[in-house]
């Protein structure tokens, strides 16, 4: 196998790191939001639902732009983050992770919500009658039952994060080694009139990565399913 160039390796590592953090950090929030959407109905629910779905249908550059307005160093929230905690998100890999997380969030929430809606709430009622408290029921009954949904959602979000481009380039710019994930690196070389070979290599790397993510997701989902009916 052809070995990766340092630039490719850097982009690969960065992509994996960004996607990993994007998913793990947003997962608890994703579960919480999915829970609220699946279990409660309240006046503002369609609006919340709409806002969460926005990144799915909104152009990624718009999302990046809104993030910039909100979290940029001069942004509404960003200036406070900077002044109070000296945190800058723009131009950092954390910023890229935020962009990826926001873009992948609706996919994650959809999966988990679907799983939650399919959970037989009678099983939770049964657990209550057996003496389990709310959190106990959540961790011993609900969570294991929605595990396939969480897994599917996480992997989809992970894969989506690996591919995130528009929001990242707008919000976190394209800094090699810092925010230049594989898609951004690829974009750079595609612009370069002599970059054909480099582009092809990155594209293949990208396809391989995506296929791997899909395959792992499929395998894990199947394993979970068989465990369930074991």
């Amino acid at each position: 196998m052809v070995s990766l160039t340092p630039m490719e390796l850097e982009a690969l590592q960065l992509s994996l790191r960004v996607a990993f953090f994007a998913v793990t950090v947003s997962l608890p929030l994703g579960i919480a939001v999915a829970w609220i959407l699946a279990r409660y109905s309240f006046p503002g629910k369609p609006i919340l639902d709409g806002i969460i779905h926005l990144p799915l249908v909104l152009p990624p550059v718009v999302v990046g732009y809104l993030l910039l307005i909100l979290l940029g160093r001069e942004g509404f929230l960003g200036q406070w983050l900077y002044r109070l905690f000296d945190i800058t998100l723009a131009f950092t890999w954390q910023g890229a992770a935020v962009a990826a997380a926001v873009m992948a969030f609706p996919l994650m929430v959809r999966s988990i919500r679907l799983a939650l809606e399919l959970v037989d709430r009678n099983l939770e009622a049964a657990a209550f009658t057996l003496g389990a408290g709310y959190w106990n029921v959540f961790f011993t009954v609900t969570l294991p039952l929605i595990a396939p949904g969480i897994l599917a959602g996480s992997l989809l979000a992970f894969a989506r994060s690996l591919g995130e481009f528009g929001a990242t380039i707008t919000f976190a710019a394209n800094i090699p080694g810092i925010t230049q994930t594989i898609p951004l690196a690829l974009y750079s070389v595609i612009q370069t009139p002599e970059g054909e070979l480099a582009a092809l290599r990155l594209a293949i790397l990208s396809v391989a990565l995506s296929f791997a993510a899909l395959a792992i997701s499929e395998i894990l989902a199947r394993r979970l399913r068989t465990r369930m009916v074991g």
Partner: protein
Amino acid sequence: SPNEGRADSSVESVTLFAAASTTNALAEIVELYKDQSDTRVRTVFAASSTLSKQIVNGAPADLFLSANERWMEHLIDKAAVDPKSKRALFGNRLVLVVGPNNEAESGGQHQKLSPSLPLGEILGTSRLAIGDPAHVPAGIYAKAAMQSLDLWDDYSDKLAFSGNVRTALALVERGEAAAGIVYETDALILPKLGIVGTFPPGSHPPIIYPLAIVTDRHSKAVEDFYGFLAGPEAAKIFARHGFSPSGALQ
């Protein structure tokens, strides 16, 4: 000319692919050309490298205005433009700009930058925005200039790459980057930005903007507009925007 994708086929149209740095000047020129001709002029601005690549791939450009020689030569090599039509229109200079609130001493565009430039102080914890030196002409010039001033090795990890020169400028304007290396013409359109100084002309290859007609795109409309761009009225506008006249080149 075979203008694909055109909305109204009864009106002739000309598509110009031009370096991002010429955005404002060309807007004015196109506006002016409207009074003289029925031809609809469509402009596409991006990094010269991006445009060059797109033209090779068959993008519907009639004319190409590049911010350096290299990407024009590339198109000539690929027989994508008519080499006979190539002519250098004007030149430019490279400056270091800082954001409106930056405390750095702004000597204006007449200040010559030297290796003693306190770039570390100017940047602080922030970054220096430049065009992606892998392909964007402004970035290629910037890298050369930094190298010749011995700044490259110390600050190459403080850079933020942009897809074209105007993105770099926007990053400085928005305060996301403390400073940026852009063309003098770019800096001039945002008076609120501070110009720390100009890179000495010898610190980077000469900045030249060649214009050429894309292969097989010769038509009366294209040639008319080509002539207009190369003509005195356009030259006046380019000069007003700060581009150096072609006579001053070399």
